[in-house]
């Protein structure tokens, strides 16, 4: 990479740029998946600033698109904090559930997880293997059973045992399948009969393109997403779609996943992310 810094250097040094340079900058911005609309806005900014602080100006513009909501985890001060993990197939929900549980455990709180993905073959076993690895109890039901009932069992148990946290895994679903989205709404409704759901986290795969926006919109309207877990940031993708989501839907990115191990998980750092986008 480093293309972006080349530009900054160019912008600093000259007063006019060849059209080819702009094309290259456009291509670089588009390549980060922030989308054509944001790219256009950024190019306009870039065209205006031709001074020494060009880099800061661009970073500032990008930062201005970040969501202003708090990125701190939401907790339930009166009992078990219930967290639901939702998302499209293959975005890394189960892995994120395990990593989040490990993170909570490490911080000294008690946690159990509910294996609500009863649909995908061996998803429950995948979570159980994780449970053993990170030493966290996994509540599970029958394969192809009702996910809402597993979640219900989980939340009842967590309440009985006064566990600090309950993390609920759900089956991956494409956001345009309305029946599956209704199923998700039901899971949340059923859980809320026992205890409020403090946080609904949507996993977004960093390699996802502009479709991520549709995912965030529809999941949000179904189960009121309170934050995003940006997964697979360790690849070559820069996850620019998350910025577009923050900018348009005001859903904060709260966590990032950067690998397959339990420790490859961290709170979102907006500064590092912005720098990564334009690296």
């Amino acid at each position, binding site marked *: 990479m480093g293309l972006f810094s080349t530009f900054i250097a160019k912008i600093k040094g000259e007063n006019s740029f060849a059209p080819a340079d702009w094309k290259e900058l*456009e*291509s670089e911005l*588009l*390549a*980060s*998946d922030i*989308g*054509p609309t944001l790219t256009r806005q950024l190019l306009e900014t870039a065209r205006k600033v031709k001074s020494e602080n060009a880099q800061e100006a661009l970073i500032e513009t990008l930062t201005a698109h970040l969501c202003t909501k708090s990125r701190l985890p939401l907790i339930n001060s009166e009992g078990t904090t219930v967290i639901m993990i939702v998302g*499209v*197939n*293959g*975005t*890394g929900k189960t892995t994120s559930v395990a990593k989040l549980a490990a993170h909570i455990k490490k911080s000294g709180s008690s946690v159990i997880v509910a294996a609500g993905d009863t*649909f*995908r*073959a*061996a*998803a429950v*076993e*995948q979570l*159980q*293997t*994780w449970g053993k*690895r990170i030493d966290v109890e996994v509540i599970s039901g029958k*394969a192809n059973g009702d996910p809402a009932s597993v979640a219900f069992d989980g939340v009842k148990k967590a309440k009985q045992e006064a566990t600090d946290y309950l993390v609920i895994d759900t089956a991956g679903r*494409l*956001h*345009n*399948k*309305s*029946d599956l989205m209704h199923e998700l709404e039901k899971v949340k409704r059923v859980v809320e009969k026992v205890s409020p759901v403090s946080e609904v986290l949507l996993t977004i*795969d*960093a*390699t*996802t*393109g*502009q*479709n*991520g*926006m*549709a995912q965030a*919109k529809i999941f949000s309207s179904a189960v009121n997403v309170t934050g995003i877990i940006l997964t*697979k940031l*360790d*690849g*070559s*993708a*820069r996850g*620019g*779609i998350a910025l577009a989501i923050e900018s348009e839907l005001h859903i904060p990115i709260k966590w990032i996943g950067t690998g*397959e191990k339990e420790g490859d998980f961290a709170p979102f750092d907006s500064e590092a992310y912005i720098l990564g986008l334009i690296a």
Partner: protein
Amino acid sequence: MFDTLTSRLSATFSSLRTRGKISKGDIESTCAEIRQALLESDVALEVVESFIDQISVKATAALETIQSGTSQANAVFEIVNASLIEILGGQTRRVRFSKNPPTVIMLAGLQGAGKTTLAGKLAKFYSDQGNTPLLVASDLQRPNAVTQLQVVGESIGIPVFAPEPGNGVGDPVKVALAGVAFAKAKLYNMVIVDTAGRLGVDADLMKQASDIRDAIKPDEILFVVDAMIGQDAVRTSQAFLNGVGFDGVVLTKLDGDARGGAALSIASLTERPIMFASTGEKLTDFDIFYPERMASRILGMGDVATLAESAKKAFDSQTSAKLEAKFESGEDFTLEDFLEQLSAMSKMGSISKLMGMLPGSGALKKQIDGFDEGEISRTTAIVQSMTPKERREPKILNGSRRARIALGAGRKVSDVNNLVDRFSAAQKMMKQLRNGAVPAGMSGMGLPPVKAPVKASKKKSKSGNPAKRALEESQ
């Protein structure tokens, strides 16, 4: 809402068609709109640019030779269509079977692309055609990927070779090699090797994949990629091409609403054909990828060919021959025929999926996505509550008959009225169709909010002929 490529392009072309005469400026603005639409659909910038250049040159050249406005617009549309097909890989390519069985197929791709599910779908697809595939569990990385493949294999009755438990235990190269040897010894004619998901930038895992490749020398390496992937498709596919190499691409999750973008980039940048597409959660939701059909879908022309094929699968030849004879002889289409169609349609799969294949469905996207699949069974219940005579002659349905039917079907009388009204409208349209008139556009479909019966009978009028056509062509 997020605009799909299809609806953006349909809008662009319909505005082009309203022009009296198309100027060079119109071409330019059309190209600019296509460019924006493609970028919003995640097509890589360099692919977009070369695509636009190509269209602009060809379209400008075409303008000079064609005079009238509408045919100019059609010429531009044809140029875009042809370029799309070309960029999608042109011809459909099938798996090359090895002269010395087993034919070895290796799957590679990013985590979460859907390799394991796809391995099952591929095995089912080929076993349905009389092959004897063996699944080999070489993804020893992801927790319980081996178990997942075993469960998938069991559900479709395909044996799974899984000597290692996975979860980080075992050597995937050895497993792959042993799997191929096992298949050879037991005379399986096909081996499908599932491998661990890996990132393009992970040198160790890429090395592992190329080690598997060198050990088993697959006949086909398929790169499995999520249709929702963004601009990273460029880097990732390049990394896989250089790291492991691949002969064809499989697109997964094509049933989402992100059709097109990644497909265009990958096929064009790697010059490898897209061979299969996976379109749903069931293990049968899988098919060969046809570039022409995809192009038609992207351009909002629908995919009548696939629709006709699924219709052919669902309607037994006797029923469709009977219906066709009826249609041609000018006899009225009755509620009895309708009932037969309803049951055949439920065999064809979800209505929203079928509707999505119809021309102009881009404009109806929202209604299609929100389509209540239960409507079919409710409609069936109403028709089943009628006497045979009533089904043949809906005219005799007076108030008390309607009340009885509503009671029998557990619906309201207004539902029965609705069905009968829409049925007679459909009947009328069938008559028009038979007399050679084009029905008043598919736009009529947009009228009532829920309109299963009209849709259904129209489907007959749509699918009947192409099915026949497809049949004739295939012979």
